[in-house]
């Protein structure tokens, strides 16, 4: 497969790993922001190829993992409303909310459909005009423009029963929050390649400028990741942290102009509630006034309010997903990992989401 196979060459991978080992003198700590990178690093055994001087931490780049439990409760509450069809990406189904889950709600009769794309959700809305079809909008800047495009399309085609419950989040503010927190001292960050296809590299310039942290935007194949780590080590060994694009076939400094336009058209920046971190100002997207009629928060405000009042959100006991998404703990350091918390019986989202650090560690044990 073109643009995949060439970046999996094992000979090149070994050589790149050797180069890293040759260059790396100082002990450094790197964070891979994105859950997709955590998964790829685990799957290809990248850690096993790196020298002891490099420590890797996983970040909060898993949209399912950082959705606040109260927000998930809202989606579950809406699902019980007759006349509502909930459409969602698959991973959300099994995440435990405070009292239930989408999967449990579906077993109890709620109309919940798993979709691969917002296009599917629109089709469902067109096919069931008498129902209100609500799309659970989780994701970062990679997903936000796809949701914006679906809202614009719904407007154009006169689809009036389509709504989005936006839990969309932005990556630069949460990186800023983590670096500001200073809980985990980081020397470099592996930047999320596909978020950056949309955003470009400019929004991340504050990372080296304000915090002296190196930032290399990476693709997802093993050679991409090893190349990015090479560049991070080079930057750090020469005391020259900066923003660099290693994923040049996908990311341009200015990003995807059309996608950014659509996002600006449909969304406004708002604060967002990040599980494990709390409210981070200006880190979320809510639907703008012009497209208010697609906002589930607006259309179902009464239902959402009473759901919140009836039953307050609560975190599962002993769950350390919050610590894991901040890089403050690795999954094996959580007492519930592999004991009370497994993919079959998950306690927190990190074990459910296939981009969650816990599910990656669970699946890919290395010798």
């Amino acid at each position, binding site marked *: *497969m073109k643009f995949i196979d060439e970046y999996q060459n094992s000979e090149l991978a070994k050589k790149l790993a050797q180069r890293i080992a040759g260059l790396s003198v100082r002990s450094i700590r790197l964070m891979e922001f994105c859950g997709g*990178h955590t998964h790829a690093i685990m799957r290809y055994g990248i850690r096993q190829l790196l020298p002891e001087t490099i420590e890797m931490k996983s970040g909060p780049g*898993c949209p399912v993992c950082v959705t606040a439990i109260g927000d998930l409760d809202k989606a579950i509450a809406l699902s019980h409303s007759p006349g509502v069809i909930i459409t969602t*990406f698959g991973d959300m189904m099994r995440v435990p909310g405070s009292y239930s889950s989408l999967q449990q709600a579906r077993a109890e009769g709620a109309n919940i459909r798993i979709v*691969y794309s917002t296009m599917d959700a629109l089709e469902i809305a067109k096919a069931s005009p008498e129902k209100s079809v609500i799309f659970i909008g989780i994701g970062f800047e990679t997903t936000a*423009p*796809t949701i914006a*495009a679906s809202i614009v399309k719904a407007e154009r085609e006169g689809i009036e029963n389509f709504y989005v419950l936006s839990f969309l989040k932005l990556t630069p503010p949460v990186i800023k929050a983590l670096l500001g927190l200073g809980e985990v001292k980081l020397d470099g960050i592996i930047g999320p390649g596909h978020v950056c296809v949309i955003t470009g590299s400019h929004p991340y310039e504050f990372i080296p400028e304000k915090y002296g942290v190196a930032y290399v935007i990476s693709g997802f194949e093993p050679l991409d990741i090893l*190349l990015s780590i090479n560049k991070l080590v080079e930057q750090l060994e020469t005391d020259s942290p900066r923003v660099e694009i290693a994923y040049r076939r996908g990311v341009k400094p200015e990003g995807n102009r059309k996608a950014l336009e659509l996002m600006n058209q449909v969304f406004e920046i708002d604060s967002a509630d990040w599980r494990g971190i709390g409210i981070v100002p200006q880190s979320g997207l809510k639907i703008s006034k012009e497209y208010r009629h697609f906002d589930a928060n607006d259309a179902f405000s009464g239902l959402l309010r009473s759901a919140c009042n009836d039953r307050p959100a609560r975190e599962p006991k002993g769950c350390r997903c919050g610590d894991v998404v901040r890089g403050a703990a690795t999954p094996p350091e959580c007492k519930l990992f592999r004991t009370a918390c497994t993919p079959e019986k998950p306690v927190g989202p990190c074990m459910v989401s296939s981009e969650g650090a816990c599910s990656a560690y669970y699946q890919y044990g290395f010798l």
Partner: protein
Amino acid sequence: MPRYFAYNPKAMCLAVPVKVVFIEGDEAETEIGGVRRRVSVALTPEVKVGDYVLLHTGYAIGVVDEVEAKETLKLFEEIIKLSEVH
């Protein structure tokens, strides 16, 4: 048709490079490894038949820059050569 999505690590962050074989309005027919899929190109209006695009949740989010791709592979080779010299 009911849609079941058991286990999809690619759902949120990742995008797969696919080749555009046919464009119709804001949708395109794409191909990878002999598998075909219909996608939206609403986010990549500049796309042409024969381009490769990065596919994420049913949308092309960017066109793959083939020149840069070649440069990256060349870069790998250079890095390897340099390390062998030492």
